[in-house]
């Protein structure tokens, strides 16, 4: 069977914040370039839509770039590359103003300037916001703006199954068109991965169903290392049961975390003293990794509530009053009313830590380039790294813009220098991929394993071994379990043989990717024998700069990930103890 091959200059995979920003940057470089945007969902369904609190950048006279860089590096527990952080903070204001010019409805001060709010781990108010729907508004502004470029060609609801690599260069992709079930081939000189994170490898996450680490697995299978995958951020305030995010902005606006005795327990963990109005970097405005650990310690001390979905504490907004809640946190009120059945104006919100963000991802440099020629990555999919061992809230939306633009521009520049993409060598690669898809998925017969069963067992193994607290024996058991699940995955049963909008196939392909991603997280965690940022080991409770001030790089082999390490770039901020 031969495939029709569509040729473009640049292919962007994923149409969330990073992907759309990359596509627009590429489109603005030259009207002659053809930019394909391939996404498994319509762009406005991308998970950027769920981001709530805001986007950080230095826009006020009292603030400065060094302060933003220092906060970010300190929050990252010194695992961030400082040259990348410096570039990030320098370009952040420009990118957020650009989004303002593109129509994003930022919240405003009385004088008409874009408002800023506090955020965890940030030393001053520097987080721009659009009420508590910042990601939603950013995504729709980017998507709607992208519509004016006729040379951005969208492939909506197309699931990418592989990168086609020829002569050491990324040359194209294969994808399944959900409408027809057909495998399509796209060729290009440059490819940008912007598929977001993979929180769905865990059972309890703020992440949408589509967050299955696709781009990470695509790169990994193409021989590109994944960096620092063991660093998984738990957000301290998700709703029990659903995992729906209650934004950190509810604490920056003055919300309090209280245990079952009504005590603001964070003061017992060195984050005090408690103040009535929020103090930067203190108490409820501490960083997410530390707040999530405090919750677990309260649980171990028996200070948490127990509900049908496990332990929880209270996030109390009542003292903020209805007017402020409706103006600054309307989505929080809507979510809590709908999904908990209480009104946060009158009752405290039950919350618990929930998997939220992957600091790790596809290994890139500051330009978004991966080690594979022609392949770029940006956003949560990528690891530049500016987030190190723990990301500060409100840096990720900005990261999507800054590094989405960088990756898109660089990919477009590279593509324009390469002449017309040749599709000849891709035909054979595409046939191989079609054969793999047919034999393992589309025409697979027999099998006994349910997709959902393997997925659920994987998720629980990840929570057991790679949760907030980790140790060698639980992580080892998780690695072992993942090997068993990989083997069982070869015997999955597919019940749906239809070609049209076959979401069971997509679930199977996603699970295939997630098993790879989970493997890199668990193995990376097992070999990092220290505690740093979000990675907390009970058997190695201290940070160990002598042996582990370095990035983990996981390379795919048939026997599982092979781990290597790379140095962290230090420019002006020498590692010191991280204390708030």
């Amino acid at each position, binding site marked *: 069977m031969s495939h029709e091959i569509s040729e473009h200059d640049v292919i962007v995979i994923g149409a969330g914040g990073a992907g759309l920003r990359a596509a627009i940057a590429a489109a603005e470089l030259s009207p002659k370039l053809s930019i394909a945007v391939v996404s498994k969902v319509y762009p406005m369904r991308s998970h950027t839509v769920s981001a709530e609190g805001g986007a950080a950048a230095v826009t006020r006279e009292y603030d400065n770039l060094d302060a933003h860089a220092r906060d970010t590096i300190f929050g990252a527990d010194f695992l961030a590359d400082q040259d990348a952080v410096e570039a990030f903070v320098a370009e952040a204001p420009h990118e957020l103003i650009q989004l303002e010019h593109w129509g994003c409805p930022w919240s405003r001060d009385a*004088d008409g300037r874009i408002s800023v709010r506090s955020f965890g781990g940030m030393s001053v108010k520097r987080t721009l916001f659009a009420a508590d*729907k910042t990601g939603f508004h950013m995504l729709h502004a980017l998507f709607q703006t992208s519509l004016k470029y006729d040379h951005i060609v969208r492939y909506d609801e197309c699931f990418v199954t592989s990168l086609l690599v020829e002569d050491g260069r990324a040359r194209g992709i294969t994808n399944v068109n959900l409408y027809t079930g057909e495998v399509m081939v796209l060729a290009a000189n440059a490819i940008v991965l912007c598929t977001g994170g993979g929180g769905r490898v865990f059972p309890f996450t703020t992440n949408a*169903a589509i967050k299955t680490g696709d781009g990470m697995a695509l790169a990994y299978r193409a021989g590109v290392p994944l960096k620092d995958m063991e660093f998984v951020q738990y957000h301290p305030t998700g709703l029990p049961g659903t995992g729906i995010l209650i934004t950190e902005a509810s604490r920056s606006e003055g919300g309090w975390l209280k245990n079952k005795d009504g005590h603001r327990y964070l003061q017992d963990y060195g984050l005090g003293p408690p103040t009535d109005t929020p103090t930067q970097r203190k108490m409820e405005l501490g960083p997410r990794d530390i707040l999530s650990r405090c919750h677990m310690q309260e649980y171990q001390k028996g200070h948490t509530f127990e509900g049908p979905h496990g332990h929880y504490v209270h996030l109390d907004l009542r003292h903020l009053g209805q007017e402020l809640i409706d103006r600054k946190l309307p989505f929080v009120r*809507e*979510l809590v009313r709908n999904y908990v059945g209480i009104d946060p104006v009158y009752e405290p919100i039950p919350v618990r830590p929930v998997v939220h963000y992957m600091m790790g991802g596809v290994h890139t440099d500051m330009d978004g380039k991966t080690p594979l020629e022609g392949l770029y990555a940006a956003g949560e999919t990528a690891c530049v790294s500016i987030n190190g061992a723990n990301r500060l809230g409100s840096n990720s939306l900005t990261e999507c813009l800054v590094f989405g633009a960088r990756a898109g521009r660089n990919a477009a520049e590279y593509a324009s220098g390469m002449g017309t993409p040749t599709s000849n060598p891709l035909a054979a690669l595409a046939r191989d991929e079609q054969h793999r898809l047919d034999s393992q998925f589309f025409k697979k017969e027999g099998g006994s394993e*349910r997709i*959902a069963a393997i997925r659920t067992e994987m998720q629980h193994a990840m929570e057991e071994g790679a949760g907030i607290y980790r140790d060698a024996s639980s992580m080892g058991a998780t690695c072992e379990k993942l090997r068993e699940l990989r083997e069982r995955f070869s015997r999955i049963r597919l019940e749906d043989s239809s070609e*049209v*909008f076959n*979401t069971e196939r997509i679930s199977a392909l996603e699970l295939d990717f997630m098993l790879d991603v989970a493997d890199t997280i668990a193995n990376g965690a097992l070999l990092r024998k220290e505690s740093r940022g979000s990675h907390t080991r009970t058997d190695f409770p201290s940070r160990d700069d002598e042996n582990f001030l370095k990035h983990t790089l996981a390379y795919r082999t048939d026997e599982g990930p092979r781990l290597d390490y790379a140095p962290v770039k230090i420019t002006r901020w020498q590692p010191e103890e991280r204390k708030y």
Partner: protein
Amino acid sequence: MSERTITLDVTRYRPHQEAVPTVQSYAIPFPDDWVVLDALNHIKDQVDGSLSYRWSCRMGVCGSCGMMVNGEPKLSCAVFLRDYFPRAIRVEPLSNFPVIRDLVIDMSGFLDKLKSVKPWIIREQEKPLSEGEYLQSPRELDAYQHFSQCINCMLCYAACPVFGLDSGFVGPAAIALGYRYNLDSRDHGTAERREVLGDHEGIWQCTFVGECSVVCPKHVDPAAAIQRVKVDTAKDWILSLVMPWGQR
């Protein structure tokens, strides 16, 4: 948490297998906090892997999971099974759209309509980024903010009697989004949008019924946008009669 069992009557349609849609019934044991989407996920994961539908964020903001629930357009992640129990729940694809498969509708036409209303900032002159943001007062933000809350979930199209008769109608969500930019103090594109927003006979067939606004899960009130476009278009028409030389 106590569990009860509810019946879901779900529309099935696989174009290569069935000539017309059929209904399949599933008995679903459910805890008190399950939404309709949880029941569909339970079916997909545990009972019948061939059921197809769209979903993603499960928190009412991505706009993927719109369906007819007992005849009303709803986000299936935002309606609770307990509110329908003990009666059975009928789950169908959104009305007024072609059906691709099971609960999946073809909404590609909306994407074209969205583009047609030019939902981006149009400026007579761009200010360089180095000069900073366009100032916008909270009052100016308020003027368009609620029209910017649309999640493109398509519930308003499923409720719209005009769209039901004429699929060429630009429709509530796209008109509201185009109008949102007209109201934005940073925008100068009203004239460019006039033709597509006001020209189609659809808006004149739209009555004050406002079904679109009733079903909108984000209180965007697209009916208000349509009525205001009508007024603006009529005003423009009258002005063009009075001052034919002065109108763009």
